[in-house]
């Protein structure tokens, strides 16, 4: 896309005028000087195409193709053969021992170790086949068999079963269909399905992922390859991403995670839309979902088309009113969202592709009225109540203060150039604008005046190089530069908790991947130089402006290996060293953090946090069974935490606890176990257990906000006529590893939730698909509170929710 290129250059000009000439000069030479590469060309590296379209010239790229065999007019009935190959959509790897079940034939067969299958003795006529592979989303195909037929089926891998291109053990992806089913909920609900991921919540208003006990500033999110900016320090600030746009959600660690920017000490969450393909036909999808809890309505429409210039546009609207706990309404917990995204790709020629992506997220989010408190006495009173203050007996869609109003723009422009088989260059610009306004219940008609109003600009420039060194070896390298300008917007009438600041960062990354059949190893190195300028307002009278600058240089290094002694068994190990620069809230917070009823003070002398994460894993898989176990130990030196002080700080609203940011030593360790069993083509059983422990060694007591032990068990059953029934039970234990003075309330008791869903997909003529789904979350209307939910101080979590969803694809 020329447009993408222009944008890239425009931004380059704007911010790097002095050096823009270089890139402009470089481009034409670069294009002319390219070798005439022939043969295999790696186009979009994560091609995905789920819904096959009929016919077409590029049969091999499609999900199935007819083999132009001899047109035998009258084949004797029930002697036809369907043969073919099953490949992974992600990396075109054969899917060994996949199962193929013929609905009309009433029997199933299994593919061989190379993914080849032969289904014989089929009758002529319309036949429906279910293609399944462990860890993949099944595909249902209806074929009108008239002759022996050959097809290639691409299945999409999901979840931890994937042994992805890199060794990163946790490379985990949810598939768009699964995400679509979740998309009436929030992004973290989809993320929670990844083993080892929990959510830190503020009721229904905000949720953030927690992975292996780390969250917020220590777990960065990459939205379409760009580190999600915004006020990520706040535990009540959800990442501003529309789950409808995300086709892949993965958590990557180790070498793969080094590639991405962001203050992370181990893992990174990747959220990616489905890539565009040149061969994709024009498709569209409209989906509507209704949720009984909150009388929620979600409508999404998307259109996409392939070709030289491929595009996808998506729009989402959400309207939710007050949610309901089993016994009462959660007053003022409504939500409104309007999101849009545009994805463009221009396949200039065999060697050159440009892409543009823009997304807009806007939301108005109500915060439970009863959770707004003025001081500790109020908090104490609120804690003692069964039903929160200000609970109304009537449902409403209206959203009053306290509330949040956020919008987030993300623009990404990149151009990828492949001069020959061995090299791939990508130039990328990512720009984000984040506006966050938070409204409190205030005196003097100020409730409509934001109490917190922050605007953040961030720009990223990146160049990446992918170099194939051999059939199983490659090198990745990148350089990044980014700047962030964070400003408190005037007019709040409140001294800001977080000062204005400017930051910039330069980074370099290099990784080597060796991917043999039996041995794989990966090594990566990253360097960052982080600069901050904080512009603070002193608290003495009269207030003065003070500026402070910091420079932090950090390194990250990772080494991982995998050994596959025999097919279906592999052992993994990894060692990752990462340093994390203190973030602005840790350095400069100053004031009352209303959300946590405490005065927080940063420490501008904090130094780097250093983490070493050691991981080990075992994967065992058979055709219908897999078992995946992961272990980790992560000591962190100079771990930054909020230390409660023995003395209270007196204010006009009474005494508040004082928390200071301090550095100490911490140790995290844990395990994730996951088993999947498909006893017959109709049944699927999936169990996942996650255990995490965290200890603050300096204080010799547990770390707060560690997820409770949790176990998820799901059972899928394929009913007649392709109805699929799933049930899922979630068991969460009580968080017992906490001392009494570490929290206002003891952790809530253990709980169990039951979800059920029933869905069916119809393939209509000319490959139109109608999908219906009815689901119930918290079917038993269990009354519970979760330890990681801050709203638990005030109210129960939401009760039963019945969801109906219909989608139509063409």
């Amino acid at each position, binding site marked *: 896309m020329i447009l993408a290129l222009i944008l890239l250059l425009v931004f380059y000009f704007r911010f790097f005028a002095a050096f823009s000439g270089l890139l402009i000069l470089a481009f034409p030479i670069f294009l002319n000087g390219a070798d005439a590469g022939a043969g295999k060309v790696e186009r979009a590296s994560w091609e995905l195409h789920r819904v096959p379209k009929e016919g077409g010239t590029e049969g091999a790229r499609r999900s199935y193709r007819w083999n132009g065999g001899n047109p035998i007019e009258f084949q004797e009935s029930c002697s036809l053969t369907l043969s073919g190959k099953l490949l992974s959509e992600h990396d075109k790897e054969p899917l060994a021992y996949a199962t193929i079940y013929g609905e009309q034939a009433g029997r199933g067969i299994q593919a061989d170790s190379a993914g080849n299958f032969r289904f014989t003795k089929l009758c002529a006529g319309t036949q429906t086949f279910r293609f399944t592979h462990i860890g993949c989303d099944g595909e249902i195909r209806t074929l009108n068999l008239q002759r022996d037929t050959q097809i290639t089926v691409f299945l999409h891998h999901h979840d931890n079963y994937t042994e992805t291109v890199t060794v990163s053990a946790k490379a985990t992806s949810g598939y768009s269909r699964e995400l679509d089913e979740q998309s009436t909920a929030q992004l973290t609900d989809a993320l929670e399905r990844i083993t080892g991921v929990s959510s830190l919540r503020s009721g229904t208003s905000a949720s953030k992922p927690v992975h292996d006990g780390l969250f917020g500033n220590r777990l960065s999110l990459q939205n379409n390859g760009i580190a999600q900016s915004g006020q990520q320090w706040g535990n009540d600030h959800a990442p501003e991403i529309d789950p409808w746009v995300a086709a892949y959600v993965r958590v990557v660690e180790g070498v793969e995670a080094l590639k991405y920017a962001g203050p992370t000490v181990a893992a990174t969450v990747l959220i990616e839309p489905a890539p565009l393909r040149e061969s994709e036909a024009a498709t569209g999808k409209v989906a509507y979902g209704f949720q009984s809890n909150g009388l929620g309505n979600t409508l999404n429409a998307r259109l996409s088309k392939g070709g030289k210039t491929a595009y996808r546009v998506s729009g989402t609207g959400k309207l939710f009113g007050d949610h309901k706990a089993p016994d009462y309404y959660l007053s003022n917990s409504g939500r409104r969202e309007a999101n849009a995204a545009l994805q463009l790709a221009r396949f200039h020629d065999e060697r050159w592709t440009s892409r543009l992506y823009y997304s807009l997220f806007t939301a108005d989010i109500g915060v439970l009225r009863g959770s707004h408190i003025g001081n500790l006495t109020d908090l104490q009173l609120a804690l003692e109540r069964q039903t929160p203050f200000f609970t109304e007996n009537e449902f409403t869609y209206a959203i009053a203060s306290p509330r949040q109003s956020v919008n987030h723009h993300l623009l990404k422009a990149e151009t990828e150039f492949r001069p020959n088989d061995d090299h791939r260059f990508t130039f990328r610009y990512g720009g984000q604008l984040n506006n966050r306004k938070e409204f409190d219940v205030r005196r003097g008609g100020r409730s409509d005046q934001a109490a917190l109003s922050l605007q953040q600009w961030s720009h990223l420039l990146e160049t990446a*190089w992918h170099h194939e060194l051999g059939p199983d070896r490659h090198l990745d390298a990148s350089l990044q530069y980014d700047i962030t300008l964070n400003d408190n917007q005037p007019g709040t009438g409140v001294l800001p908790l977080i*000062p204005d600041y400017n930051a910039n960062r330069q980074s370099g990354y290099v990784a080597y991947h060796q991917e043999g059949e039996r041995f794989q190893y990966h090594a990566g190195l990253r360097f960052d130089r982080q600069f901050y300028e904080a512009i603070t307002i002193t608290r003495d009278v009269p207030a003065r402006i003070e500026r402070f600058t910091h420079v932090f240089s950090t390194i990250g290094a990772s080494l991982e290996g995998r050994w596959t002694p025999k097919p279906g068994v592999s052992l993994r190990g990894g060692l990752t060293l990462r340093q994390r620069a203190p973030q602005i809230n840790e350095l400069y917070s100053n004031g009352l953090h209303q959300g946590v009823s405490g005065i927080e*003070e940063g420490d501008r002398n904090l130094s780097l946090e250093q983490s070493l994460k050691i991981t080990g894993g075992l994967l065992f898989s058979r055709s219908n069974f897999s078992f995946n176990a992961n272990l980790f130990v992560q000591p962190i030196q100079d771990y930054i935490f909020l230390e409660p002080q023995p003395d209270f700080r*007196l204010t006009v609203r009474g005494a508040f606890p004082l928390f200071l940011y301090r550095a100490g030593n911490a140790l995290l360790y844990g395990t994730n176990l996951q088993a999947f069993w498909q006893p017959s083509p109709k049944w699927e059983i999936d169990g996942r257990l996650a255990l995490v422990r965290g200890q603050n060694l300096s204080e010799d007591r547990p770390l707060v906000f560690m997820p409770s032990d949790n176990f998820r068990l799901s059972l899928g059953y394929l009913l007649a006529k392709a109805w699929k029934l799933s049930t899922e039970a979630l068991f969460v234990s009580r968080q017992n590893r906490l001392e009494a003075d570490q929290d206002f309330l003891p952790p809530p008791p253990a709980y169990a939730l039951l979800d059920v869903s029933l869905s069916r997909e119809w393939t209509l003529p000319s490959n139109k698909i109608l999908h219906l789904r009815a689901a119930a979350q918290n079917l038993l209307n269990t009354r519970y509170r979760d330890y990681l939910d801050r709203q638990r101080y005030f109210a129960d979590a939401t009760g039963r929710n019945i969801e109906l969803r219909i989608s139509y694809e063409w």
Partner: protein
Amino acid sequence: MTRHIYLFLGFGLLFFAASCADDDDPIIDGGEELITSVTLTLTPNGPQETVVLGFSDPDGDGGNAPSFSTTGTIVANANYQGQVSFGGPDGSIDAEIIDEGIDHQVFYQSSGGANLDFSYATIGTDINGLPIGLSTILQTGAVSSGELTIILRHEPNKVAAGIAIDNPAVAGGSTDVEVTFQVTVE
């Protein structure tokens, strides 16, 4: 040839080291809603002297610790008219509280043995005839000492069951002021 171009490009990006700072100073607009002072003036209905209890925290939450002041002596077995006043950086905010009378109520609690009996004055009610509580009547008891806590609640339920001048707990709402004075009745 191509190899050189790759190198060239790589070096070009190394020059990203340019910095781009926003040099505007932030606008200091904090404090308009802040309450920085609380003053309780006790005017005697007899020959005693006027008593003023003061709380002052000009720099708001955090920063320097607030200061307390007392002028005059509270006399035992006497009757006073109490008037509380709240101030912010821009002056008194009493008018704002009276304007939003239905959303505000001041409570008075004596504890630790102080023989202070507050009741709402008949003047200064909100449009529903319910107390705002800026004006009070104080009847002192025997010689004693203890604490007096003045609480300003925002959006309380003024008709909650059990609500009294010394019981804001049942009223809900959020606390805008909670200041405790050491008092001696002599």
